[in-house]
């Protein structure tokens, strides 16, 4: 849903703030950001966005590959509950 998408966006936003603050802000001699810190924050944010996009792309590729493998052996699988639970964990037949 639209709300779920915004939620994920905002969570990622908060995580980027946390990460880049941790990596870029070291001194507390002033109340305001100095130029080096501002540059670092800008690069850190862009890099994190690039990182996230690469992660998502890789994850999607692997899931797609698994989905194809699964389809080939779908009927051969035993359907015992515990086994099934485990299959569901590794399952990729649902597009999420």
């Amino acid at each position, binding site marked *: 849903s*639209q*709300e779920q*998408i*915004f*939620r*994920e*966006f*905002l*969570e*990622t*936003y*908060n995580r*980027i*703030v*946390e990460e*880049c*603050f*941790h990596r*870029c*802000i070291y001194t*507390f001699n*002033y*109340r*305001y*950001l100095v130029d080096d810190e*501002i540059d670092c*924050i*800008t690069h850190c*944010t*862009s890099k994190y*966005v690039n*990182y*996230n*996009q*690469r*992660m*998502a*792309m890789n*994850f*999607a590729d692997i899931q797609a590959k698994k989905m194809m493998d699964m389809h080939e052996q779908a009927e051969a699988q035993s359907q015992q509950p515990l086994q099934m639970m485990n299959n569901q964990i590794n399952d990729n037949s649902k597009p*999420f």
Partner: protein
Amino acid sequence: MSNELNSNQLQAAGELEIEMMQDLYKRMTTACHKKCVIPRYKDSELTKGESVCIDRCVAKYMDVHDRIGKHLTTMTLQQQPSLQTQQANDPSRVVGSYK
């Protein structure tokens, strides 16, 4: 499809905003504790230096928060010059959600 939000969506957005501010506050609390509070517990009071550091840490954290918000918005708008479609409104395309 209209770009306007109805009142239910606005309320949900408001609740989401509060939740995210709580999340921000928790992360900031952890971050400034790590940056400012010296891990020696001989005393119960914050030192003068720790107190000043905390005040500046909160100010800087909120500043970083605002700047990154603007930066992400700019990036979103640059990547999707047209805001006509539903998909173009999806900010997860910028942050790279796996969905």
